[in-house]
């Protein structure tokens, strides 16, 4: 009998063009996603060497990082403007499809890939962006690459990769109301350490995953990179197929596609190099307190004693004390959005809590849908009005305050409750202090001006 295989092995083996196991192998890339920040130097390199984009029909670009969300059509920052104009020119010159600023398909690259049906099971998907792991939620091998690799994929439609080890994370138990996918991944990262997944491709499985929506699965896959893993997958199932069916670039013959996709599953957990068991039954909502996503605690817990100089430096930066509670963090800002939690379901979860409420005095709250389509649908459902009535600003789609590369900056010294994925020093603006949490938790925190335990306390 042949050895049992993981889903990852099956997809991987199917894509090897040349090279031996254990060494870098040349892999075929089925989908190459592109944004304005990591592509200009790659296009520049092609032009210098008189190379072309080998498969523009497998390449899709958008603008997200630099986009001003207050008025998407009015880019004041000259460098941002130049970077966006450069992508426009490059896309035209090389024949790459571009969802340009303000067009109906535009949005955060990791939101629109799935939304347009480009993201599909069994594919190898790359993008010059570490959160490409998001697309693994569809049962694809998806990972972030650097700009030289972007250039390489443009020119060859392939990438050299060394096969990582695999880790199966069995997520099971009974997920309580108020606890979400975001809390699962934050808890996993904080328990395994900021680089606890390094060198592994993760597969999540178990009853909790089976019951999860695609939006929540994407939140899990999105953040594996924060634990050091480049890729995080789930088995494609009916939920996956139903999500894809009918989308703009979905296969015309869904029956054949589903039959093909159904071959991608892990034979049995013994095929993983390592497994981890995670029972969610007692899981509390998580809040990050430090300067990497591993520095997170349950909302009803305490900030731990620093273990080393790195921890002490983080405490200095965030200005919080060991032993204090996440409920004591004085918030001045709340951010709803990003490729982690900027999807319709996330906005709905936040709106449900904010409905009929008002955010705390003096607090600024931005709501930034992940794409133009999400914005339109949210408005059709009246979510924008709920947010505005609660005192939040309703914005145009983009990466926004997930990273301070556009005008949406959290001021220095201000604590921000954020649905994004990274809380590095200065990530949301120089001197800003980020506290990651789920959309529900950030919504409740915005109302109170500090975090609360949404399982127990009245909102």
């Amino acid at each position, binding site marked *: 009998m042949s050895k049992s295989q993981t889903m990852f092995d099956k997809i991987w083996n199917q894509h090897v063009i040349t090279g031996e196991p254990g060494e870098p192998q040349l892999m075929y890339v089925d989908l190459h996603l592109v944004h304005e920040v990591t592509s200009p130097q790659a296009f520049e390199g092609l032009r210098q060497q008189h190379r072309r984009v080998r498969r523009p029909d497998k390449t899709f670009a958008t603008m997200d990082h630099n986009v001003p969300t207050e008025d998407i059509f009015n880019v004041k920052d000259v460098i941002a403007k130049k970077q966006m104009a450069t992508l426009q020119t490059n896309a035209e010159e090389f024949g790459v499809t571009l969802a340009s600023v303000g067009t109906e398909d535009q949005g955060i690259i990791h939101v629109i890939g799935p939304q347009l049906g480009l993201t599909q099971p069994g594919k190898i998907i790359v993008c010059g962006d570490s959160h490409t792991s998001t697309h693994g939620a569809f049962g694809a091998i998806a990972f972030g690459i650097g700009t030289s690799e972007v250039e390489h994929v443009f020119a060859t439609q392939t990438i050299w990769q060394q096969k990582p080890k695999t880790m199966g994370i069995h997520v099971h138990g009974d997920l309580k109301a108020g606890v979400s996918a975001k809390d699962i991944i934050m808890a996993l990262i904080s328990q395994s350490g900021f680089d606890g997944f390094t060198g592994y491709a993760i597969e999540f499985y178990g009853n909790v995953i089976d019951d999860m929506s695609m939006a929540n699965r994407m939140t899990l896959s999105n953040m594996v990179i924060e634990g050091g893993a480049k890729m995080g997958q789930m088995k494609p199932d009916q939920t996956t197929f139903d999500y894809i069916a009918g989308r703009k670039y979905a296969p015309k013959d869904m029956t054949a596609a589903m039959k093909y996709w159904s071959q991608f599953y892990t034979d049995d957990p013994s095929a993983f190099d390592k497994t981890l068991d995670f029972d969610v039954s007692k899981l509390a909502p998580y809040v990050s307190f430090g300067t990497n996503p591993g520095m997170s605690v349950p909302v009803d817990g305490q900030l731990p004693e620093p273990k080393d100089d*790195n921890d002490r430096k983080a405490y200095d930066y965030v200005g919080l004390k060991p032993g204090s509670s996440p409920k004591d963090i004085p918030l001045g800002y709340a951010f709803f959005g990003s490729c982690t939690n900027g999807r319709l379901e996330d906005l709905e979860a936040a709106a449900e809590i904010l409905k009929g409420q008002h955010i705390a005095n003096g607090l600024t709250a931005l709501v930034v849908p992940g794409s133009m389509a999400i914005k339109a649908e949210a408005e059709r459902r009246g979510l924008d009005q709920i947010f505005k009535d609660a005192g939040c600003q309703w914005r145009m789609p983009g990466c926004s305050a997930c990273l301070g590369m556009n005008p949406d900056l959290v001021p220095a010294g201000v604590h921000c409750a954020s649905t994004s994925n990274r809380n590095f020093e200065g990530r949301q603006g120089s001197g800003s202090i980020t506290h990651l949490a789920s959309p529900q938790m950030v919504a409740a925190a915005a109302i109170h001006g500090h975090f609360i335990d949404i399982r127990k306390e009245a909102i």
Partner: protein
Amino acid sequence: MEKFTQHIGKPAVIHRNNIDTDQLIPKQFLKNILRTGYGISLFYDWRYDQNGKPNPDFILNQPAYQDATILITGSNFGSGSSREHAAWALIDFGFKAVIAESFGPIFYMNATKNGLLPIQLPKDQIAILATATSQDQIKIDLIQQTVAFKDHVFSFNFEEMYRYKFINGLDDIAITMTHEAEITDFEAKLPDFAAPMPGDMAKSAIIETSK
């Protein structure tokens, strides 16, 4: 890419763990569309104060370290985002190699793509190298795969294919295109229900003929 066989250079020690790409090069510098000019912004938030004035205490601002070429650092170096600017900034400053206990995986790749040699050594050996001052030199030999400092010689591993590229100064795309026939064969075998995808093949062909 320049050939890399042997390098003797001055070390700069920043012995911290988890130096992420936001610290190496903050995002306000990512808007450039070129590959060079990032060296003065390397470690920006540590190197300059709020008003953009250099912090004289920071090692890379000290005159003695302006010609440093080997960075000695802790674990999980270059974690965080995929920005290749982190490698470009280190190279633009003048670094030829980074010696760390471990690396963020994407940064490691980016370094190898750009001719910046990432060397992984165990904690105790890093601790020894971390005692280096601006008076010292470190010798890296990529043929022997060794790092020599004072009377210590440490061996390191570097994947054979990367080593070949470093030693010969080769570009990845050129290497890959020696496999073009296999790539084309592979494309012909792709499942035929594949989704209709966007993109303009005609335009890309024009680029090629303009060669």
